[in-house]
């Protein structure tokens, strides 16, 4: 093995954040994210499972259970990683849910609900659905839309299935209604379903009115949660709605929300294809949301990303980092969440490893996703070691080593044959962009059920002309210029300056044909804009240049200048990595 290759490999992988433009240390302050806290909390929960702690809410006659204890420990580590207490409570409840804890159990006392368990462990007050924001999807709305619509409907019409004025004194509010046919067969399910439909519909309308695609997932969740805030949230229901001791109001109410939102009846787990009833999941998570307190937008981003183990996530709006896009790494928690789910189900480490690897197939850029997952797992180990990061590192380390080694060998051979760093990176960037185009064309053909014959990026560079600031001229992410040609179902579309000119014009004019066609390339452009999430192509080339004698600072600056699309924004790790490559090279005495 050539010394330059060894030095490059070691320098590029020496610290997890050398392979990304992301700022990992800032992730630990809760500023915009707390995903490393989620990785750590998942490990905490897994370790508690290993100790034999019981992951079940039960009607036991004791003040505290194992779940209370685990929740406290998970919340503590989340808050140490910058999570707001309400966000920590919601993340903990959601992780525990996917680990296998039931969301509710009980009679009047004890009446245990997972969201409330987590909230009380965090020591925070309860919240209201109207104050729960949605995840930021460019803009954001809140559960207020659902609550407002529901209360307006309650004011305008009579929604209960009977005339409530007929309820005699002493009967209304008693088990006479609540634990019998009146409540369980009629009032709770019928009213709940009406309210959930109204709330879900209002959420979808609000999304669209605020310039966003409707998020069916969050609309159904907050529509259901708002309904559960009014009706009995954990009542048993009549047999026509489900079996006794199994089905309660959240699932029944969620059925209406799921239907209203146009969600599929069944969803699947990534990597395993296990089937889950959508209404069961929505009902369970809605009651968690209702009881967890008042999360912030950041908390809701993490909530969604924890749930991104749902395979249909991208289509339904359940998180965004589970694939196929390579999102900024501050979103990424799918791997620990999935590993925790599997761990809770009793999967072995080897089985978890195999499934995590399979999950990587769902990304447009599998190699980059594998490296991204690996560096996050390695960084998370600084906070909390555990069986999940162990498994995820084992799952991704071979892929990471393979990717970096291949690139290092290629860079070495190219530079040895006389190519300059500039020539090498121009070639690498071109290949990277072409790889994204072909991968997106292939996968989106299946998704859109169209034949996307090709996507050709003809000119991709910073500086689309929207901004004059020098910074925007240098970094692709801030004013991206894209010329692209795409052939969809036999028709060729050619666009110049897509992001600054074509897309806004088409959207503002309501040009549906162009916007539909843009659906075929939109994800590829997004991949380019997010390319810095995994910057291994640039880092390896720059490190090789430094290892082969180029001044490390100059290598880093030249690499950032040439690879101005795939590095997309300034990278702090790049200079450190090139310096290290140079240092290592000088220290190798064989």
């Amino acid at each position, binding site marked *: 093995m050539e010394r330059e290759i060894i030095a490059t490999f070691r320098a590029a992988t020496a610290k997890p954040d050398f392979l990304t433009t992301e700022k990992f240390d800032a992730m630990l302050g809760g500023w915009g994210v707390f995903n490393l806290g989620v990785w750590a909390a998942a490990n905490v929960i897994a370790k508690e499972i290993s100790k034999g702690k019981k992951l079940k809410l039960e009607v036991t006659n004791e003040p505290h259970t194992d779940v209370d204890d685990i929740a406290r420990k998970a919340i503590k580590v989340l808050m140490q990683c910058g999570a707001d207490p309400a966000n920590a409570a919601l993340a903990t409840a959601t992780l525990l849910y996917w680990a296998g804890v039931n969301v509710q159990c009980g009679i009047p006392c004890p009446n245990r609900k997972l969201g409330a368990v987590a909230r009380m462990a965090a020591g925070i007050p309860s919240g209201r659905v109207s104050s729960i924001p949605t995840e930021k999807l460019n803009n954001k709305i809140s559960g207020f839309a659902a609550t407002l619509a529901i209360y307006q409907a309650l004011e305008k019409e009579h929604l209960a299935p009977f005339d409530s004025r007929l309820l005699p004194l002493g009967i209304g509010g008693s088990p006479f209604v609540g634990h019998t046919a009146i409540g369980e067969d009629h009032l709770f399910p019928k009213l709940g379903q009406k309210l959930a439909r109204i709330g879900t519909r209002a959420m979808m309308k609000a999304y669209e009115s605020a310039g966003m695609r409707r998020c069916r997932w969050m609309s159904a969740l907050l529509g259901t949660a708002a309904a559960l805030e009014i009706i009995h949230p954990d009542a048993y229901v009549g047999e026509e709605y489900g079996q006794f*001791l199994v089905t309660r109001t959240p699932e029944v109410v969620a059925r209406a929300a799921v239907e209203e939102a146009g969600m599929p009846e*069944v969803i699947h787990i990534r990597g395993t294809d*296990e*089937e889950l009833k959508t209404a069961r999941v929505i009902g369970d998570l809605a009651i968690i949301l209702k009881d967890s307190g008042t999360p912030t937008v950041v908390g809701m981003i993490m909530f969604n990303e924890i749930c991104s183990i749902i395979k249909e996530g991208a289509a339904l709006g359940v998180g965004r980092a589970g694939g196929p896009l390579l999102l900024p790494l501050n979103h990424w928690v799918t791997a620990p969440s999935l590993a925790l789910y*599997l761990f809770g*189900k009793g999967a072995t480490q080897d089985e*978890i490893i195999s*499934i995590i690897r399979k999950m990587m197939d769902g990304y447009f850029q599998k190699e980059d996703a594998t490296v991204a997952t690996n560096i996050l797992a390695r960084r998370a180990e600084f906070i909390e070691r555990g069986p999940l990061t162990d498994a995820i590192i084992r799952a991704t380390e071979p892929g990471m080593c393979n990717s970096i080694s291949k690139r290092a060998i290629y860079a070495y051979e190219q530079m040895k044959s006389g190519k300059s760093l500039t020539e090498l990176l121009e070639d690498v960037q071109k290949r990277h962009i072409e790889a994204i185009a072909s991968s997106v064309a292939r996968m989106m053909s299946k998704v859109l059920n169209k034949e996307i014959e090709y996507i050709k990026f003809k000119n991709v560079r910073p500086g689309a002309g929207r901004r004059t600031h020098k910074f925007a001229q240098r970094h692709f992410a801030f004013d991206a210029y894209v010329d692209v040609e795409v052939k969809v179902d036999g028709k060729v579309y050619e666009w110049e300056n897509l992001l600054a000119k074509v897309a806004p014009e088409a959207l503002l004019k309501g040009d549906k044909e162009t916007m539909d066609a843009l659906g075929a390339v939109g994800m590829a452009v997004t991949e380019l804009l997010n390319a810095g999430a995994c910057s291994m192509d640039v880092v390896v080339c720059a490190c090789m240049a430094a290892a082969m004698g180029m001044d490390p600072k100059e290598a880093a600056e030249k690499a950032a200048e040439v690879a101005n699309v795939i590095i997309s924004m300034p990278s702090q790790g790049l200079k450190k990595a090139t310096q290290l490559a140079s240092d290592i090279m000088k220290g190798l005495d064989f």
Partner: protein
Amino acid sequence: MISRKDYFDRVMVLGQYCYPERAEEAVLLVLSCLKHLLSEEAARGIKEMLPEPVRGLWEEAVFNNNYDEDEVDCITLAKRLGNYPYRAAAERAFEVVFASIRELTDEQRREAIKTLPLTVQPLFERAKSCAIDGSAEDFL
């Protein structure tokens, strides 16, 4: 005696399956694997103890796809034939079917049914917690 449809509906609830077909698939797979690994005498003995409609399903249960005749572990066999993503998911299928049988049998029959292959005997015990008798006990 409950009908096959009602039985599969109940298995569907116990296993939290999304479709009745999944319940049917799980039942037939579990019964096939058990039959395959039991001696003829033991298989006959268990059949006598099974409630209807499970007894009829036991008679019908056969493998209709390729399987490893030399496999001696019931769960491994089921995992492979049922395409379960991990071993615990295959164990869960046994637990669910055993829970359904527990619900339809009395204590005496349950004791007799315990002459199962060694790897699945603990699952028959564990199934108590998801059978209706188990969850009702939890509740009380």
